[in-house]
C-alpha cells in the first residue's frame, strides 16, 4: 500500500496535507492526531470510500497495480460510524454481505470461530437493532474479518467495547501485525503502541 502525497480538502479547509507512506505485509501503522485532524478521513481514503483531493493511494500485489474491484475484497474496515443493516439478524447480515461480496465465506467454519471469539454466537439469531453499541461494534469485527482480508483498517478500534471485546481486538491486531497490513486510527496511546510505526496527522 503506497500513499503518495495524499491531501484532502472539505470546501476550503485542508484536512490532510501531503501524506505519504508505504506499507508491506507485516507492517502496522498507527495514525494519531487531535480530534478533527483527519485520521478518519485518511482511513476512508485508504479504504477507497473517499477520494483524495490530490495525491493517490496505490495497492500493489506481485509488482502489479490493483484495480479498485481487486482491492475491495482485500480490505476489512471497522469504525464506530460504520452502520450495519439493523433490521436483520447477525447471521442474516453476514449472509447478505457474503453474497454481495461473492466471497463464499458463509460456507466456512470461520464465521462460527469469529462469532465465538467476539462472544456473539449465542445472540447470532437476534435482530441487530436489539444489540447494545458494544455488540454492534463486535459484529462489525466479524463482518470485517469473515472474508479473511489482507488489509485491516481500524478507526477507534476499541470504541464501545468492554474488557473482553478489547482483548478479542488485541488478538486480531497481533495476528494482522505479523502477516497482514494493519492501520489503526486512534487517540489512545495504548492502541497506538500496538503498531510498529506511527504517523501523526494535522500537526
Amino acid at each position, binding site marked *: 500500500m503506497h500513499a503518495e502525497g495524499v491531501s484532502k480538502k472539505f470546501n476550503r479547509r485542508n484536512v490532510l496535507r501531503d501524506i505519504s507512506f508505504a506499507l508491506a505485509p507485516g507492517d502496522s501503522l498507527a495514525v494519531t492526531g487531535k480530534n478533527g485532524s483527519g485520521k478518519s478521513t485518511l482511513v*476512508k481514503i485508504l*479504504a*477507497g*470510500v*473517499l*477520494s483524495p483531493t490530490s495525491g493517490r493511494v496505490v495497492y500493489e500485489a506481485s509488482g502489479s497495480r490493483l484495480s*479498485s*474491484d481487486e482491492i*475491495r475484497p482485500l*480490505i476489512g*474496515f471497522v469504525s464506530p*460510524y*460504520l*452502520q*450495519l*443493516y*439493523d*433490521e*436483520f439478524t447477525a447471521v*442474516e447480515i453476514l449472509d*447478505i*454481505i457474503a*453474497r*454481495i*461480496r*461473492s466471497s463464499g465465506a458463509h460456507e466456512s467454519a470461520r464465521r462460527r470461530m469469529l462469532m465465538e471469539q467476539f462472544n456473539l454466537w449465542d445472540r447470532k439469531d437476534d435482530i441487530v437493532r436489539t444489540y447494545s453499541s458494544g455488540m454492534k461494534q463486535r459484529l462489525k469485527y466479524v*463482518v470485517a474479518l469473515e472474508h479473511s482480508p489482507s488489509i485491516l483498517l481500524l478507526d477507534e478500534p476499541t470504541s464501545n467495547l468492554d474488557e473482553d471485546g478489547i482483548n478479542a481486538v488485541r488478538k486480531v491486531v497481533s495476528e494482522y501485525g505479523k502477516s497482514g497490513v494493519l492501520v489503526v486510527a486512534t487517540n489512545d496511546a495504548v492502541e497506538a503502541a500496538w503498531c510498529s510505526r506511527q504517523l501523526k496527522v494535522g500537526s
Partner: protein
Amino acid sequence: MIKQIMAVFSKDVRSELRTRYALNALLMFVVTTVAIILFALRGEHAGPTVLAGMFWVAVFFTAMSGLSRSFVSEEERGTTMTLQLIASPTTVYFGKLLFNVMLTILLVAGVTIVYLAVFPAFEINDMSIFLLTVFLGSLGLASAATIIAAIIAKAGSRGTLYPVLSFPILIVPLMTVMNATVKSLEGTPFSDAMVDFVVLISYVMVMTAGSVLLFDYVWKD
C-alpha cells in the same frame, strides 16, 4: 457480477419487507392521488386523453414519493459506507435499479387496478399496447428515478429536490407514455404506437448508459 447485483436486489427486497420504507409511502400516495382525482372530476365523464394523463400523474407523483428511498434510506441509516466497502458502484447501481423497476411495476399495476375499479371510462381496448407501454414506462421512470435518487440522497433538502430534479428529466418519457396510453384506450392499431415504443426504448438505453457512467462519481463522494 450478476450474482452480486441480485444479492444487492435481494437485500433491498428483504429490507423493504421488514421496514416498509417505500411500500407504505407508495400505497398512501396511490390512495390519496386517486381520491383527489375522483373529487376533481366529480362524476364528470372524462375522455381517454384526460384519463391517460391522470393515470400517469398518479404514477409520477407516487413514484416520486417512494423511489428515492432506495438510496435515501441507506444514507439516513448510515449504511452507505458499508455498501461502498462490499460492492462495486456498478453492482450497487444495477441492484438498486432492479429494485426500483420492481417497485414501479408494482406501483403501475396497483394504479391500473384502482383506475379500472373507480373509472368506468378507463377501458383498455388494446391490451398489448397498454402492457408494453406500462412496462417500458416503468423502466424509463425507474432508470431516471434511480440516478436522481443517488444524487439527492447526499443533499440536505431531499424531499423537495427529488420531484423538482426528476420532472425535467422525465418530461419526454411521460409525454410518450401518455400518448401510448391514449392509443391503448382508444384501441388504435399496434403499429401506430411503435414510434412511442422506440422513443421509450431509446430513453431507457441512454438514461441507463449515462447513469452507469455518472454513478461512480455520485456514489463515492
